[in-house]
């Protein structure tokens, strides 16, 4: 199976709902390690994305990702622009295609994490969203190389993202606001990485 515009919107709606429902959880994690606004920022971005989706009525997967990317880029903080640019690479990869396969999504994911790293300077192990993005993109590409279709490839990405997010618990932050508080944030999962895992999870389950 491939991904068409409807499936892409469902994926998006699933993620947006999860963010709406669990934003307090994310904010609480950011309160311990950062400045306590991540849930609010993410929810605000998701709402802006939804408004754009409703106004724009996208007809391709690429247009869905463009609307979402703009919603995030239209939000302040550190996560807004970084996630916005992450999704922008998905949009670029999908550009012009009526439907996309897992290979296109893998390209978007890899370019996405590359852009986030270029802009934010974080490496794997710095306790940021990159700790989920990077292994997820690699797992996605490995699945594509092994011939996986969209659903299976997304499942592989989700498992890698979830493992990656979980791994941040033991880390000491070196980037982002959490880097100011040192040892205090150790023992707490990075909320940005957690959100990345949710994103891939909804990609695997959306129909």
């Amino acid at each position, binding site marked *: 199976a491939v991904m068409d515009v409807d499936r892409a919107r469902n994926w998006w709606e699933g993620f947006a709902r999860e963010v709406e429902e669990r934003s307090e959880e994310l904010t609480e994690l950011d309160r311990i390690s950062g400045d306590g606004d991540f849930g609010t920022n993410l929810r605000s971005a998701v709402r802006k994305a939804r408004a754009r989706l409703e106004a724009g009525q996208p007809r391709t997967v690429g247009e869905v990702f463009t609307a979402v990317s703009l919603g995030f880029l239209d939000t302040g*903080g550190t996560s807004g*622009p970084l996630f916005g640019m992450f999704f922008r690479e998905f949009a670029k990869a999908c550009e012009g295609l009526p439907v996309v396969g897992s290979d296109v999504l893998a390209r978007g994911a890899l370019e996405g994490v590359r852009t986030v790293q270029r802009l934010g300077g974080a490496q794997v192990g710095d306790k940021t969203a990159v700790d989920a993005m990077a292994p997820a993109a690699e797992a996605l590409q490995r699945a594509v190389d092994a011939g996986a279709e969209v659903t299976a490839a997304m499942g592989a990405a989700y498992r890698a993202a979830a493992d990656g997010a979980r791994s941040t618990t033991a880390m000491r932050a070196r980037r982002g606001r959490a880097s100011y508080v040192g040892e205090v944030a150790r023992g707490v999962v990075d909320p940005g990485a957690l959100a990345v895992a949710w994103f891939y999870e909804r990609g695997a389950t959306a129909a």
Partner: protein
Amino acid sequence: RRQFLNDPDDVVAEALEGFARAHSDLVRWNRDPSYVIRADHGAHGSKVGLVSGGGSGHEPLHTGFVGRGMLDAAVPGQVFTSPTALQVAAATQAVDTGAGVVQIVKNYTGDVLNFRIAAEIAQDEGARVQQVLVDDDLATDPQLTGNPDGPGRRGTAAVVAVEKVCGAAAEAGADVVEVAALGRRVASSARSLAVALEAPAHPGRDRPSFDLGEHEVEFGVGIHGERGVGRRPFAPAAELLPQLTAPLVESLGLRRGDAALVIVNGLGSTHPLQLSLAYREVTRLLDGLGITTARSLLGSYVTALDMTGCSVTLVRLDDDLLRLWDAPVRTAALTW
């Protein structure tokens, strides 16, 4: 603290509306995405576009510097929050007449990130974009803080000099690379230090962002109401101002016979009488060292809401920079 306010969430938009109403001869406010642009933009043919921006609460920066000889557009975020990448990108594209755009960015993680992304978006659309990073705040110099991997020096009042010089160069027809190079020259020739006598309060909040004892001042503050690098005893102006000024001279390596632009800047609630008095102390010290106060700027130009205090900025001047500083400018906050 009581403030003129309706819904605190609307303070920036309502203030921008008022500002644009009061200065409709100079600027136009684009409500969404939000940026302030020269009223006569594009009327004078092609020139390098100049964009700056950042969180609000620092007025008259940056909106007060939009006009002939300075910025083409200013992009205001929420209070003390970077504008979004899309706002900056929209402003960047709006001021591009084909000659390219120089973005002037104060060194804060959010600003740097959003301007960088905006530059990429605008570049994707074909604009030639150059960036100038302003990082003059000596209090956050890695050499002094001993934190070499940190975000580096913050950008503060030197941004006014960068905007003025770049604006003059752009008006004179310099190309995008030249304008940016001049801006970087100003930024690297500038250092600032600030002291707060009282912390500011956010719109809608009662309490100041930090409390000071009766006999102390907050030394090395930035412009976001954050605490400085340390508390020092309150002292007469004749002692406090040299504490701000002497390290700048040292850091820039200024010597007898050198010429400087001296900016004594109020942080929001400092009365002109106080600023003039502070200026006297600063220039007396420079006189004593044989450093020429070639030009000066005295007033509240880069503020931190209603913080009480002042910053001192020194910019080493050469003939080129002096000529560009002196070039005509016509904005809400700076006109000559």
